[in-house]
């Protein structure tokens, strides 16, 4: 399935890009599975596994690692927020 991936803050810098469009093989249908698949692609994406307290959002809403992802979703990965 086609997914839009976004990276923010330190994760964006480590991975060296703000986002990418990917084609995820069928079967991996949660945020955690997507994270693991991305990390396996290398190119700095291993940081998704080593990042402390990795957070995610699916379609611009905070989501847990067990949240489902579906074709066409926008999935973002980032460190804990520090605004305010």
């Amino acid at each position, binding site marked *: 399935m086609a997914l839009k991936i976004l990276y*923010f803050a330190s994760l964006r810098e480590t991975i060296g890009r703000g986002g990418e469009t990917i084609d995820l093989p069928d079967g991996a249908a949660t945020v955690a599975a997507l994270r693991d698949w991305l990390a396996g692609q290398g190119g700095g994406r291993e940081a998704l596994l080593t990042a402390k307290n990795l957070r995610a*959002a699916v379609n*611009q809403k905070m989501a847990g690692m067990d949240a489902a992802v579906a074709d066409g979703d926008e999935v973002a990965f980032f*460190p804990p927020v520090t*605004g305010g």
Partner: protein
Amino acid sequence: MNEVSVQEADFDAGAEIAALTADDPQAGAVASFVGLVRADKLAEQKVGADGTVQAMSLEHYPGMTEQALAEIVAQARGRWELRRVRVIHRVGRLLPGERIVFVGVASGHRGDAFAACEFIMDYLKTRAPFWKKEETPAGGRWVDARETDDAAALRWQVSGGD
């Protein structure tokens, strides 16, 4: 007027506070909060003896940010009786002493206004997609999330003002 704004520009807290109650006969109380870039916190990151405070930059997740703030305000409205609410968060490069965030809540009574204002700040700190990066003489440094912020947000789930 928008309820939430994410912008590079500074804001006028006095004008925002006045707008929260203008022509609203039921608004008797406005609680508000202004957060600023603390110069001394930036200074802690100095590396060399000549290290001077630089600045801070705020990154966000365009699109999600406004939605997340609107959702936080909606939750506050579900818990307390509120009149107008206003949230402004700046992004981009900010110097020490500059304003970062404004939260203003108008209500008929001060208890609701205070609680909702603090709730919105606590939730914003842990649920709105902003990230701070400090400039230091040794380079940029992403600010770590604080456990005290998680604790502050969590307490509304236990004893929230219902």
